[in-house]
């Protein structure tokens, strides 16, 4: 019984939040990795692009809620998501045409593009704050839990509850769908294949008649969709606050680099590596150990390796370790 309780507690506090957070990070990291693979720079505006797409989703969600539209047990935000994606696509295409294209034609150094992206970051960040304000916004509605901890206890008779939030379930389902669609697109369609060819070897791809502008446009569209989905899922799960999205830049980049920049599969693996390390290291293990260890040996402290305030430190340290011992990431990424 104690053993089961320990497993349930572990699942409730580590496994399920870790999977949901990992899926969100993975989607974010996929965007970073695609931009890196095709456009060949680290996009510092990524966190704010995420915030922008989510903001549109939030605004449309509020409008829908005001109109009385709802999805029943599911959050209305899912209905608003396509609008958020469209808004985000408009933004990234606009920035690409107005800002990035100039430097692409000049064949500017990657570092210049990174600095340019910080300019875009400022503008997007300013826009988001101007439109929706810097505060915390909640937009989740519908049923809160798939299984609540109390129901689970009543069902199984265990003393530990296992709660699964609707948002966590939706995160996993949506992430799986999005990743499946992405991989199908990259591996099965002509455009997807041309994107991979362009990423592998630009000159060769150009020689074989691939239109670079088309590849770039598709990349931005996909990135916009991925980031908006990632941002909306994160916002549903926690809440929407522009500054938090800016800070997500660090774990998202860490995930992309740990997996290997430019490798979509790596980005997904990296997302989960970062998410699980963050959750396990900042989780207080007292409860689980209390069940597992024989009586008398139960820990008196919280057995928390690091306080949650240092979760950035975790992604950072993992990033450093990977960089030191395997500079191209877990899955061979590219290096420009």
């Amino acid at each position, binding site marked *: 019984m104690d053993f089961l309780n320990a497993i349930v507690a572990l699942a409730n506090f580590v496994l399920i939040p870790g999977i949901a957070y990992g899926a969100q990070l993975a989607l974010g990291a996929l965007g970073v990795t695609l931009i890196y693979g095709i456009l060949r*720079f*680290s996009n*510092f505006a990524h966190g704010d692009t995420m915030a922008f797409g989510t903001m549109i989703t939030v605004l449309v969600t509020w409008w829908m809620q005001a109109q009385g539209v709802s999805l029943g047990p599911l959050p209305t935000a899912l209905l608003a998501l396509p609008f958020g994606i469209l808004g985000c696509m408009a933004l990234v295409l606009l920035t690409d045409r107005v*800002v990035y294209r*100039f430097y692409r034609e000049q064949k500017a150094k*990657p*570092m*210049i593009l*990174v*600095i*340019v992206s*910080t*300019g*875009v*970051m*400022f*503008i*997007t*960040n*300013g*826009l988001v*704050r*101007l*439109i929706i*304000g*810097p505060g915390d916004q909640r937009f989740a509605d519908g049923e809160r839990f798939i299984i609540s901890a109390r129901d689970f206890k009543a069902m199984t008779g265990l003393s530990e509850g296992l709660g699964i939030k609707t948002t966590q379930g939706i995160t996993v389902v949506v992430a799986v769908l999005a990743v499946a669609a992405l991989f199908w697109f990259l591996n099965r369609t002509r455009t997807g294949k041309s994107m991979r060819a362009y990423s592998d070897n630009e000159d060769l791809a150009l020689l074989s008649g691939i239109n670079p502008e088309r590849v770039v446009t598709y990349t931005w569209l996909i990135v916009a969709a991925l980031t908006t989905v990632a941002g909306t899922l994160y916002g549903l799960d926690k809440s929407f606050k522009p500054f938090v999205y*800016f*800070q997500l*830049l*660090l774990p998202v*980049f*860490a995930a992309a*680099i740990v997996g290997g920049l430019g490798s979509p599969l790596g980005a997904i693996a990296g997302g989960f590596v970062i998410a699980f390390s963050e959750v396990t290291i900042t989780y207080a293990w007292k409860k689980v150990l209390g069940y597992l260890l024989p009586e008398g040996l139960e820990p008196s402290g919280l057995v928390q*390796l690091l*306080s949650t*305030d*240092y979760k*950035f*430190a975790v*992604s*950072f340290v993992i*990033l*450093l370790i990977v*960089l*030191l011992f395997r*500079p191209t990431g877990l899955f061979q990424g590219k*290096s*420009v």
Partner: protein
Amino acid sequence: MSATMKNTLLFLLVGVLILITGMVQSWNSALLILNMGLVSAIMALGVNLQWGFAGLFNVGVMGFVALGGLAVVLVSEPPVEGAWGAGGAWRILGGLALGALSVAAAVLTYKRLPRGRMRGIAVLAILVLGFFVYRWIFDGGVELVEANNPASTGNIGGLNLPVLLAWPAGGLLAAGAAWIIGKTALGLRSDYLAIATLGIAEIIVAVLKNEDWLARGVKNISGLARPLPYEVDLQTDPGFVQTAAHLGLDPVIASTLYVKLGYTALFLVVLLVLLWLSQMALKSPWGRMMRAIRDNETAAEAMGKDVTRRHLQIFILGSAVCGIAGAMMTTLDGQLTPGSYQPLRFTFLIWVMVIVGGSGNNFGSVLGAMLIWFLWVQVEPIGLWLIQLITAGMAEGSALKVHLLNSAAHMRLLTMGVVLLLVLRFSPKGLIPEK
């Protein structure tokens, strides 16, 4: 128009802008802008050392600035009696030393032992054991220190030295952090350094916010020592009041201006010294070598230059300059508020200054810093005024109008982004290009 002429005019323009602020708003706000502009100029010099000279992309400026601020507390505050007396502070120091030792031991083991499974296990064992012993000693100390009168202290205090000493100390602290980061992240690809510095800055600020024993965390430390007299003391000093009256000034205003001008003079001295040093460095063979490395690492390496070592060197120097500026800023504020360190303000804004001023040119960085800081401060009232103008026709109290007026404060981020992009597009070398 010659280049010197143009540059002088640009500096004059900034001077005139500040003078206009003084005449239109108040001399106090003009001096505030000037003082923070000088501090920003020093930060920009530091970033310019790294980016302009050596092409290193450091987006962790905020962290080094915050470390400089920490140095002010650790140097100038008196030691907290109860913390040291009860032995808590000693325990913390011991714990930290032990932590550092176990990391050093792990690194040494990794280097000395032959490759293989044994090495991995040994390193891991040292680290895990070290971590638990460190936490055991350290946590006990922290508990003792933080329990000591938490409402007003609860920290270890400092060395009770003159506050001016904190400025070089801030530089040293930042240099130490830069050494650790540089040792691990330099030599890797340039964007990795960017992410690594971004991360370390967040961690440094997180430490400042959460480690209450260090500098009281988000409970802040205010009333830090200052190198200049207090306004209140000046106002009661008959000699000062008399001089003020002689100049036709109100003693209260005169005292605030006197203190601010005092800071201006101090900051100006530091800036000029650092500027002179940077100029000498730029012109020296060392500076030429740096630029050669920046422009073509492979060629420089082929000429026998140790690129990684030189990068480490200039990374430490630039970060130290940022640390000095951070200590100066905290001294100016008179308080350390870890919650106020925001990456957009303390990292990316400095970058805008360097790029706009002209990367690779020290005078450009100084000019860019003053100009951008002026904009950063003044965009808010200007934006508010603009929005008031736009919304003048709207119905009083309409939701949109209220919302727009409330968000005027966020105009500055937008403006900075637009300025940065415009400069990068139409004048990528900045206002004063590198020679």
